[in-house]
């Protein structure tokens, strides 16, 4: 029996309606990032596993395969590690660098977890830049990028891992607790398991002041006052690493983020490669993070280049889920109406010329060839129709066809342009056409 013609689990086709939305979102986000001075890059789909792992623990299970050289390869499970590799080995002289990307990533998932195994990541990395201003830049750019996607309601939660790391260092220094305990605390923080965390810091060997601090800090959230509260706890213990920087970033962020950013010390995310700022983005109606990011000053040194870096990435698919959930969304790209130009057997050149003129004028024109659907079609004869709101075009041919029925809402007196009017000069001066639709307002609410 023939196999059902399916795609692999967690991999899927993108059909035109969705593809057009994706294209529009990607174009707008890339435009935003470009305006901030970020340059596009691409990395290979396959990487050498050992090389990626050199940069840091892989946060997701990758697809693995052997090539003909018996090299163990992976389909890239994220883009940050490949960029660190690329920059450290090939772009050292170009630092500082601001890079942006749109690339699919591939991650193994268990069955029946409703998880895609291929998803599109949109992100930026600012390499060779340190300090509060660079952190603030990345947070604000993430806000603008999410707004450019069309999202109106979203939250970016930020904090720093520095304070937690210093606290744990101090705990180990002042007690006989070991690495195992530290790792369990870090895992509990990463999983946001406050119950486990509470159990771990209740260890009798731990100084009560540290226990109290660890318990309290992960519950702090809000704005600048949350940073101040964290400083009040951590400074007397000599563990305030990263908090001054976070406060300085916050001052900038608060002024421009339009209420989309909040401080949340429970975002002790994640991957062990973060060294300072960490961030996660959320939107109502979607139970998972849209994206995440932070500062990873140690990753490039794993590839032999001592340089700081900060960045974010978000999933296009998750953002689209959030967009659908936000009723009344007006961020969808408006696709200009499509005009149809019939190719008449006796003079096909005229139709191509006519369509070319329309495109040169920034309009969308599709050729209707051979037996392609006749109803509602625009002919290259004297009579022609256009989709609602679009200028009607006619390519004048001697033996004109009968006028096609007008589309609903078509203008009563369409402007008529003849094919012979087209000259190379007029085409050259025309506005370049676009398939992406109109730009939507790009900035977050201020």
């Amino acid at each position, binding site marked *: 029996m023939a196999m059902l013609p399916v795609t692999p689990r967690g991999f899927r086709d993108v059909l035109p309606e969705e593809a057009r939305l994706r294209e529009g979102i990607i174009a707008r986000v890339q435009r935003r990032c470009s305006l901030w001075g970020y340059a596009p890059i691409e990395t290979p789909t396959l990487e050498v596993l050992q090389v990626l792992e050199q940069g840091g623990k892989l946060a997701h299970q990758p697809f693995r395969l052997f090539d003909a050289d018996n090299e163990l390869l992976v389909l890239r499970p994220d883009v940050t590690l490949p960029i660190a590799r690329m920059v450290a080995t090939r772009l050292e002289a170009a630092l500082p660098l601001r890079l942006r990307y749109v690339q699919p990533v591939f991650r193994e998932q268990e069955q029946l977890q409703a998880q895609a195994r291929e998803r599109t990541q949109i992100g930026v990395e600012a390499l060779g830049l340190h300090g509060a201003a660079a952190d603030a830049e990345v947070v604000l750019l993430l806000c603008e990028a999410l707004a450019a996607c069309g999202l109106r309601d979203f939250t970016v*939660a930020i904090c720093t891992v520095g304070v937690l790391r210093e606290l744990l260092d101090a705990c180990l220094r002042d007690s006989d607790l070991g690495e195992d305990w530290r790792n369990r605390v870090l895992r509990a923080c990463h999983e946001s398991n406050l*119950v486990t965390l509470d159990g771990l810091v209740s260890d009798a060997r731990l100084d009560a002041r540290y226990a109290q601090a660890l318990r309290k800090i992960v519950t702090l959230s809000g704005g600048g006052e949350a940073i101040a509260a964290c400083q009040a706890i951590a400074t007397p213990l000599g563990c305030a690493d990263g908090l001054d920087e976070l406060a300085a970033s916050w001052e900038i962020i608060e002024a421009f983020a339009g209420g989309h950013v909040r401080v949340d010390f429970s975002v002790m995310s994640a991957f062990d490669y973060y060294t300072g700022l960490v961030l996660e983005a959320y939107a109502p109606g979607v139970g998972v993070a849209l994206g995440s990011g932070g500062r990873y000053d140690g990753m490039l040194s794993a590839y032999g280049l001592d340089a700081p870096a900060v960045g974010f990435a978000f999933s296009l698919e998750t953002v689209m889920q959030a967009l659908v959930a936000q009723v009344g969304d007006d961020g969808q790209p408006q696709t200009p109406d499509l005009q149809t130009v019939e190719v008449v057997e006796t003079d096909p050149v005229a139709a191509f010329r006519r369509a070319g003129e329309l495109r040169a004028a920034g309009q969308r024109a599709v050729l209707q060839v051979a037996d392609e659907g006749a109803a509602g079609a625009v002919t290259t004869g004297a009579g022609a129709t256009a989709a609602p709101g679009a200028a009607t075009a006619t390519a004048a041919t001697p033996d004109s066809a009968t006028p096609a029925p007008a589309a609903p809402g078509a203008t009563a007196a369409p402007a008529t342009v003849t094919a012979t009017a087209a000259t190379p000069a007029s085409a050259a001066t025309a506005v370049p056409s676009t398939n992406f639709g109109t730009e939507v307002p790009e900035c977050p609410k201020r």
Partner: protein
Amino acid sequence: MPQALKIAVPKGSLYADSVAALGRAGLDIQGLSDPGRQLRVCSGDVEFYIVRPSDVPVFVSYGGVDCAICGRDSLEEAALDVIELVDLGFGACRFVVAEPEAANRPADADYQRLGVMRIATKYPRITARYFDQQGVQVDIVKLHGNIELAPLSGLAERIVDITATGTTLRENRLRIVSEVMASTARFVGNIASVRTDPRIRELAQRLGEHK
């Protein structure tokens, strides 16, 4: 106008204690005392969802509900991303390994010769992790209920199951071989909801204060 806060409440043995805890935390729980066949109970700006215990982590993790009360057993077995906020203390039970009191041959002796032991359980993930930690090689059979029958019928040598008092095990002439872990009820939240909706942390605080 904020959306209703969606809270999953586990059916079954944790139900009564869960409802009482939510009541002590100041929520209107009248509709929960006798919901009949109704699975969703609305009360002001809160919606309660009455969910099968093992499905609670799924509802929370995927954002079907914002927060929930759930046994640690279900959380560990599901191994999904949720934020564990409060240990509520009630619903205490233990995960144990058990075998028939009067086995023809001790399971350990068979293991010496066979190199593998068959374990029946409702909790394959917890079971696998436990025996991996112990360095014991096992074949795991997943059953959906009345696990005690497995060793009695000879389907498996041992079981991993939860027990609160040990009564069911005793009545089926099973004895506890070792303890896997202890479990209590937890208040958990969806990651995105906890980070964006302050009502969940407030509720966590009140639940913690009125245990």
